[in-house]
């Protein structure tokens, strides 16, 4: 193991050095720091040019300059972005923060969505649903992100904001949406013709009911979950989670989940008082940590409930409880954020979904307003990233699941009479994740390099924007700092991926 790590690290460092040298050289060719002065008619133009040549040491050979830069970096000094005179380390720190905010949600959501859809698609191989998903994922995969971004701005932001002026769907529209949803569900679930019609009927009716409820309750202007809906959605979640992770015959797990939901519903009103506490008021800090603490407590409570139900297989119950608890907590949190929607919409003249930036200027407001404002600003860029990344994950998980399901050990599991749920979730799903374990770390870490195009289109000040703007402004130091960070992260990601692979798949040994 140690031997492997040393070998990989040394190779990585050499790669890093060579690539940095090449990049420095190429960037130096690509940029022209004197460009703006050349077209200038300032009377002291020559003096300004001379000053800049001296400032940037442009008379020195690029190789020498590279080594100057490199030694400074070894001493922890990334230099200055000369146009604004700001230290590069400050710029990078700011940019990484913004990028993390954007990339975290996008990665997890697209992973979750991609894996679930991919696996369902694989289980229904060569069905209409499968073909539909294949078509969709190839379509999304081939879309350029700048185009998706512009479409989203036009339809989701401007379209939705226009819709809010008079938020009523025609009943025919709702009916059509309900029918489409019904068709999708019946395709995904499959089975006999009768079963398909049943599923179609139930899910179409349910969808119609949901949208009708939203319409009747004026959800678009005053969105809320409320205690009643919380109970219903919570119960549905409890059954769903218990069915997938434990099987409904496991009564202990089911009761755990339902108990957790009951606790959540009981705590709903007290939590409203907690959320009005001083720490959430305008100008206070630390609310984020409090919420994080509450999330941890929620997980523990769910776990403990499962443990208390006991039984020989209490781990399953505890896990189910923890997941359900987290979902309940999230719903209560979202409900609180939703309560801020009416004043927020009003402050923005009825156009709450923005098309650029990462916050509304001069909005003011308490912690919840801040969260809502971040949500609305993150929505479009996150959607853009999800739509594209989701497609890739669907492809990976589908093919991986197909391969796993044709393995001998799956046949063995079926032959010894295990229920299909156990075969899919325990034997199939877990092994499906092995190839993903190598892809995801690399994806996550390369995404830290910033989604260059997405950030530019939505004017978010992340790593990608830093890179593009610096390149545009002919500032080599921030460009190189960016390349240094992304290159080192890529190397680390590869090593991490190898280690993860070895730890999840016992057939692989690093020291071999």
């Amino acid at each position, binding site marked *: 193991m140690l031997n492997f790590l040393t070998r990989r690290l040394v190779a990585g460092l050499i790669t890093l050095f060579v690539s940095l040298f090449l990049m420095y050289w190429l960037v130096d060719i690509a940029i022209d720091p004197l460009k703006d002065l050349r077209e200038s008619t300032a*009377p002291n133009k020559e003096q300004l040019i001379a000053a800049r040549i*001296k400032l940037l040491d442009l008379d020195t050979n690029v190789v020498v300059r590279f080594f100057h830069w490199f030694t400074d970096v070894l001493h922890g000094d990334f230099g200055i972005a000369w146009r604004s005179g700001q230290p590069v380390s400050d710029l990078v720190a700011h940019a990484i923060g913004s990028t993390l905010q954007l990339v975290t949600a996008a990665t997890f959501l697209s992973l979750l969505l991609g894996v679930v859809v991919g696996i369902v698609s694989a289980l229904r191989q060569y069905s209409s649903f499968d073909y539909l998903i294949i078509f969709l994922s190839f379509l999304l995969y081939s879309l350029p992100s700048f185009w998706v971004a512009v479409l989203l701005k036009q339809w989701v932001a401007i379209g939705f904001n226009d819709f809010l002026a008079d938020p009523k769907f025609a009943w025919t529209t709702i009916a059509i949406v309900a029918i489409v949803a019904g068709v999708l569900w019946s395709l995904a679930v499959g089975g006999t013709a009768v079963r398909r019609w049943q*599923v179609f009927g139930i899910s179409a009716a349910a969808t119609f009911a949901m949208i009708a409820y939203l319409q009747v309750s004026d959800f678009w202007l005053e969105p809320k979950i409320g205690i009643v809906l919380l109970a219903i959605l919570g119960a549905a979640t409890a059954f769903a989670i218990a069915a997938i992770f434990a099987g409904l015959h496991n009564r202990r797990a089911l009761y755990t989940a339902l108990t957790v939901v009951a606790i959540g519903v009981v705590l709903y009103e007290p939590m409203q008082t907690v959320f009005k506490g001083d720490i959430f*008021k305008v100008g206070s800090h630390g609310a984020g940590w409090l919420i994080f603490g509450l999330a941890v407590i929620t997980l523990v409570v769910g776990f403990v409930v499962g443990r208390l139900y006991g039984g020989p297989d209490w781990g399953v119950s505890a896990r189910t409880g923890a997941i359900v608890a987290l979902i309940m907590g999230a719903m209560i949190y979202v409900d609180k954020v939703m309560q801020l929607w009416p*004043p*927020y919409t009003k402050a923005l003249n009825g156009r709450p979904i*923005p098309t650029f*930036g990462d916050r509304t*200027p001069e909005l003011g407001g308490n912690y919840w307003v801040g969260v809502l404002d971040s949500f609305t600003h993150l929505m479009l860029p996150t959607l853009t990233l999800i739509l594209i990344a989701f497609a890739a994950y669907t492809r990976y998980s589908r093919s991986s699941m197909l391969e796993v399901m044709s393995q001998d050990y799956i046949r063995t599991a079926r032959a010894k009479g295990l229920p299909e749920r156990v075969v899919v979730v325990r034997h199939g799903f877990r092994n499906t994740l092995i190839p993903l374990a190598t892809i995801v770390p690399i994806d996550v870490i390369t995404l830290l390099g910033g989604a260059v195009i997405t950030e530019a289109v939505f004017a978010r000040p992340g790593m990608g924007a830093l890179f593009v703007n610096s390149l545009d402004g002919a500032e080599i130091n921030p460009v190189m700092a960016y390349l240094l960070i992304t290159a080192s992260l890529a190397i680390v990601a590869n090593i991490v991926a190898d280690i993860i692979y070895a730890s999840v798949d016992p057939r692989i040994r690093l020291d071999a």
Partner: protein
Amino acid sequence: MRITRKVVAFTAVAAASALALTACSTSDDSSSNPTKTGGDDSGINTETSVNIAWNQPFYSANGTSITGNATANNVILYMLNSQFKYYDENLKLTPDTSFGTYEKVSDDPLTIKYTFADTAQWSDGTPAGPEDLLLEWAAQSGKFNTVEQKTDDEGNVTNQDELNKGVYFDGASPGIALIKETPKIDGKSITFVYSKPFADWDTNIDVNLPAHVVAQRALGITDAKEASDKLIAAIDNNTTADLSKIAKVWSNDFNFVQMPAAADKNLLVTSGPYTITDYVKDQYITLTANPDYKGDHKAVFNKVTVRYNGDPMGQVTALQNGEVDLINPQATADVLTALKKLPNTTVSSGPEGTYEHVDLQFTNGGPFDPKTYGGDKDKALKVREAFLKTIPRQEIVDKLVKPLDPTAAIRNSFTQVPGSPMYDGIVDANGQKAYDTVDIDGAKQLLSEAGASKVKVRLLFDPANTRRQNEYQLIKASAEQAGITVEPYKVQTDWGTDLSNATKFYDAALFGWQSQSTAVTESDANYRTGAANNFYGYSNKKVDSLFDELQTTTDTAKQEEILSGVETELVKDAFGVTIFQFPGVTAYNPTKIGGVSKLTIAPTIFYGFWNWTAGDAAKK
């Protein structure tokens, strides 16, 4: 698969029961109506402000230092600080008497006296006064600089110790350097004496940074009066120890890219209608009306927020979505088409500060060099004239500029921006109008007179710039008819470097010059023998002597006459042609803001913000 089906069935049942419960749940809404409870303590700011989109963030409150002199800073500073004079709509300098007055006391030696008005005041309550102009002079004149900053390739200062002891102001103005004598302060007035007459004295110097704040920060004095006095003394007596600290504060402290820390709030002291009240890095800067401002340029909007978005189409979408109210995106045909489709939007096009032109090479051994014709100057002149006659200026304007700015016209002056006071007079005099229409027959005749056949012109332009590519195509097609072959030059390093360094490789250059002001001496560097922007070996003794005269002419009528003389020579020598002013587009939401107009040079759309009017939606 049964389980999966069960899951769906359960979810569906659950969702269906949601409907059943809707009826009950609507009634209990009133008891815990979230709208009201959420609205009461949300703390949302309800004050309306006007939002303006701009492409590059502000980074320095010192808009005249070498580092800080950029449009991104100057448009914001225009609203923050008062000055002695402003451009009006016709690019004429107009004094702001509520800040102060200035007058020419004598012509020989040129002596200018600036007097501060009683209403001139910094936002911390300190009156603005002569020490502010004195500091600006000290910083820009170069008189006090004892060391030069040395840096490594990182931009890190390497001779910090030396700089700590010495004086280095990050500013340089050749015009201010002409004021050699330390200016005299008399009460509220300060008098500058020029060592020689200077044509652009009225755009030469103005108030920039608050001297008392610079002194307070540099010398560690809290009292404003005492700090200013110490600063005046340091400049009068050339006290290196104090000046060194003052220079450092002047050069560095005012560069910031987000709200300064509470201890540095005095960096935000301004003398104009607005002060910076919020600045989020790379996102927006908010200016709030300065309650202590007593001048004439009263703020119309209590709050102006400038939001940063570098994507032109992104600005258009943001305008459509009501996130910004006024935009000035980089003009492309797509942007204009998109803007025209927007309801409730006022769109206007107009010229910007950069102008396109073609210059010819006189001394590179090419077709325009007399040497090619055995030193026969007339022959070379005829070939130059022939080539210029074929340049389809009107066609270029019609095809490439009018789609973006329907009012676009050929620019006919080598020195003045269209719309500036001298433009019409100079254009009438210089004779460049003769090149307005293409004259293929005339060109052919000139070529045959010169006995030049198969003339080949290598045209330098930025190959990555689509518009210049298209211009080249039009020029090429037109010149071909007269038997002149135009081809792109072979790029050596990059076009900008080649312009000055690879003169052997091109015969004509097609690019843009950017006008910063209406200063008449600005064009000196372009056309004088051996000057910085004269890459073409062009030399005309008469032009040189006219420029010498212009430098010291302070009378505007005389200045116009001299510039007309210069341009007439340029046209006579077939130096080149000017083609068009870059088109720009402005769009705004009239329900939020009105009275917007735009200057061709900085502050562009921010011009005359005191004449803006609040639209109906902004008044609420």
